[in-house]
């Protein structure tokens, strides 16, 4: 029983963290670069 609870707890924590990460990313909308020329990238 203890192993079941432990496995469920780990799964729930992972699912919760993933949900927060998705919401976090979905609510931020970074502006795309508005110019035809662009650098290869940034470090």
């Amino acid at each position, binding site marked *: 029983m203890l192993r079941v609870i432990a496995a469920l707890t780990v*799964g729930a924590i*992972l699912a919760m963290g993933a949900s927060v990460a*998705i919401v976090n990313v979905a609510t931020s909308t970074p502006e795309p670069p508005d110019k035809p020329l662009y650098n290869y990238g940034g470090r």
Partner: protein
Amino acid sequence: MDHAGGARAGVDDVAVRVGGAPRVNLVRHVSCDDALRVLPERRSTIRAPRVPVGLPAALRDRGVLSRFAPALTGLFLGALVLGPALGPGFVLRYDMVFVPDPPLWTAGSGLPRAVPSDFVVALLSLVVPPQVVQKLVLLAIFVLAAAGAAALVPSRRTVPRLAAAVCYVWSAYLAQRLLLGHWALLLGYAGLPFVVLAAHRLGEARAGAFPGRVARLALALVPAAVGGFQAMLVSALVLVAVTRTRRGLLAAVAVSGALSLPWLIPALAADAAADPAGVDAFAARADGPFGTAGSLLTLGGAWNAEAAVPGQGLLWSASVRLVVAVVGIWGFLRAARGPAKVWGPRLAVAAAVGYGIALAGATPFGAAVLKGLGVFWTGFGPLRDGQVYVAPLALVVAVGFAVVVGGLARRDAAGRIAGAVGILAPILALPTLAWGASGSLRAVDYPADWRRVQAIVAADPAPGRVLVLPWNAYRAFGWNGGRVVLDPAVKLFGREVVWNDTLVVEAAGGEIAVAAENPRVRRLTEAVTGSDAPLEAVFRAEGVRYVLVEVEAADRAKADNCTLNGSRYRCRFPEADIVYTGPDLLLLRLDRSE
């Protein structure tokens, strides 16, 4: 396993008996492989797998389902990751450039970066539309990678094989390289597990079986060979480490050398130079809270901050990925002392060397060494983007993580939950990779101007190069959602294209300009950017017939003489004929004889 448990067993469990008496505690929760290895003479005692009903006959054998489960999982995950990229049109992002009607052959100078991958794409495009070719290639990466990682797990149980497949496919490495458009490298990544298997078998082949094993190695290297130089170099790292005997090593070097000829010959013949600044520009970087070393350990750390999966740097994601990596390495080291003891330690060495190369560029001493090597010989240039060589570590982590998950996934309620959590953990650590990495990948169609210009140039039998302006390599077109991409004009024509391959990277200390590899570009940059003088004479002398100008939004609004046709570059070619002008492109012809 207890005997009662054996009686309830499905495909994964076996009843092991010795001399008619049950040997309790001999092996607990063993896989078919493990059991066969323990007692090969008792194969007849393996219980038949339970057969699910309601499926087509070919699929009613759970062995068949289990066998193809990793590949099907890879296909599903590929569809999940690519999402909007599988719609109509082309996916254009960084170095991933597919064009309509790709030419079979284009002359080029500098180092051959898309050889033979572009040729293979053009060849396939003769029978399948290039948009479809791109999607099939991208999906194939996921399917191959998943199936390969699962094949390396020293167990036939479905749960650990699925864990390996998911862990290898849903990794920061694959994600970042996909967002950098390095699909050709990812072909090598996908084929890497098969290279390990083939190299291992090559080392233990008897004389009669040796030619067949060499052929299988060549087959395993095909994805990397199609990918080109980066994919082959990563594969070579693993190949050299895993192949055991001297005869096997010689054969491996010969096969990989032969498959490398398409890019090796032009690379050795090219008059190209590798700018040492590239080491600073493309060194691995920290993309999370654990520094560069930690980022590489979590299979991230690619140089470009804009190629990170949204949310990848969050403490949550980085922490879970670090736990997966550490658990995976621990599990692999355990397996390397047991069922994978022949090839495991050798793959671990390849992973350690790859990790060392990746980390080297981020340290002052390592960077100095890499710069020195690059100056000594251009052939060391590929070492500057060191994160590429973390691929063997990704394989180690995936296999090791699968071994641990397999150990936890017993056939009770807790074991099933643990198995499911283990399989899903890599996805939950980086959930924003789904759906085109949260919108970072999306298929778009080229505006009509592009196809018209391509057709005009293709219809002209007169020889001559095509010059592409503005004088920069990368674009962020509005019609491509502002996603940065290598100028598609570079691959649009069956003629040599003159373009500026100087790479500009923004860094904390200011811009880093990695000088062009193409010697012609190094010569012409001063003429293009040094003044506003007309350029016709300069480019006629270079054999340029067409000038393709991609019209900038800022210039469209202007109405002076120089921007009459939508581009400031019109003034630089005052006597050139206007062949085509549209909202996005302006095509000029320098040669007025026709």
